[in-house]
């Protein structure tokens, strides 16, 4: 039983379980699933600004910020109690491509050469972690949502703007993967 929980969970189990967050939030309080909205709340609550965009009562987003604290706790619970520690079963093709770019180890969740404090202190690591984070924050608010708000929540409601945003997500991801990362890795 425990091995079933600590081993990898197949996509056809985790995908539907992620999708269920949409009705959970709607039924709990008519709330819509969208994680990046929290970045705006954090800004409005903690960063001094005169911009009109942050001139609203961020307390209305306390429920969402509470949820995101839960996501952090959930990540820790999964890491501490539900992890086998085995490397992720990536496809051979992906390992071959990433190896060709100079990635040498595939243990854990992300390459240690970049996603550690040592990696962060390199120019390339800084671009990927801090530059990438900045683009995620800028782009998600510009687009009015991220993977949860547009790809899952928006497409679940058959919203055309969300479909356009998701196509944008992939366009940006492909540009970064094939034209930017080869220079950084």
């Amino acid at each position, binding site marked *: 039983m425990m091995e079933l929980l600590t081993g990898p969970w197949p996509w056809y189990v985790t995908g539907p379980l992620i999708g269920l967050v949409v*009705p959970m939030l709607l039924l709990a309080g*008519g709330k819509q699933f969208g994680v990046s909205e929290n970045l705006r709340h954090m800004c409005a609550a903690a960063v001094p600004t005169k911009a*009109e965009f942050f001139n609203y009562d961020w307390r209305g987003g306390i429920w969402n910020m509470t949820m995101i604290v839960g*996501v952090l706790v959930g990540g820790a619970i*999964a890491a501490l109690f539900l992890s086998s520690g085995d490397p992720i079963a990536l496809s051979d093709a992906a390992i071959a491509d990433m190896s060709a770019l100079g990635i040498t180890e595939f243990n854990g969740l992300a*390459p240690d050469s970049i996603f550690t404090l040592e990696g962060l202190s390199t120019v390339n690591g800084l671009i990927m972690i801090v530059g990438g984070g900045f683009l995620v924050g800028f782009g998600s608010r510009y687009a009015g949502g991220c993977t949860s708000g547009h790809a899952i929540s928006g497409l679940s409601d058959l919203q055309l703007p969300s479909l356009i945003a998701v196509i944008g997500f992939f366009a*940006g991801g492909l540009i970064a993967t094939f034209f930017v990362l080869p220079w950084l890795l």
Partner: protein
Amino acid sequence: MNKPAYTRRLGLYLLIGVYFGIVLTKSEAISWYRIQEMFRFQAFHMYGIIGAAIIVGLISVQLIKRKGARDLDGQPINIPPKNMGSGTRYWLGGTIFGLGWALTGACPGPMFALIGNGIWVMLPAVVAAVLGTWAYGALRPHLPH
């Protein structure tokens, strides 16, 4: 809602978040490697997760709408449609977001789950994301939407 009820409800959102954090981690969707594999079209894994999540979300939303379901407070559930405008914000903002998604290998939800997994460099990534949001707010009057 009175105060104790409000606090209880926050507890419920916290629990939903814990659930989401566990499932996200176990799905491996928080892995930089999995995101690379997805953008290189070298496995079905991420497409399966996102596709199955949308199908379950879609069925749930349709059921909630057709049955006229109410939330725990007994309020009708309404989902406001997104305003298309010129559409620029969706493709341009989406593309900017996608660039960041592939570089960090994490969208906002997974960033928080990764911190929980002890990937501490996601903390500066979240701070940078908040600053990116701040920059968008400052530039918003000058950007096409």
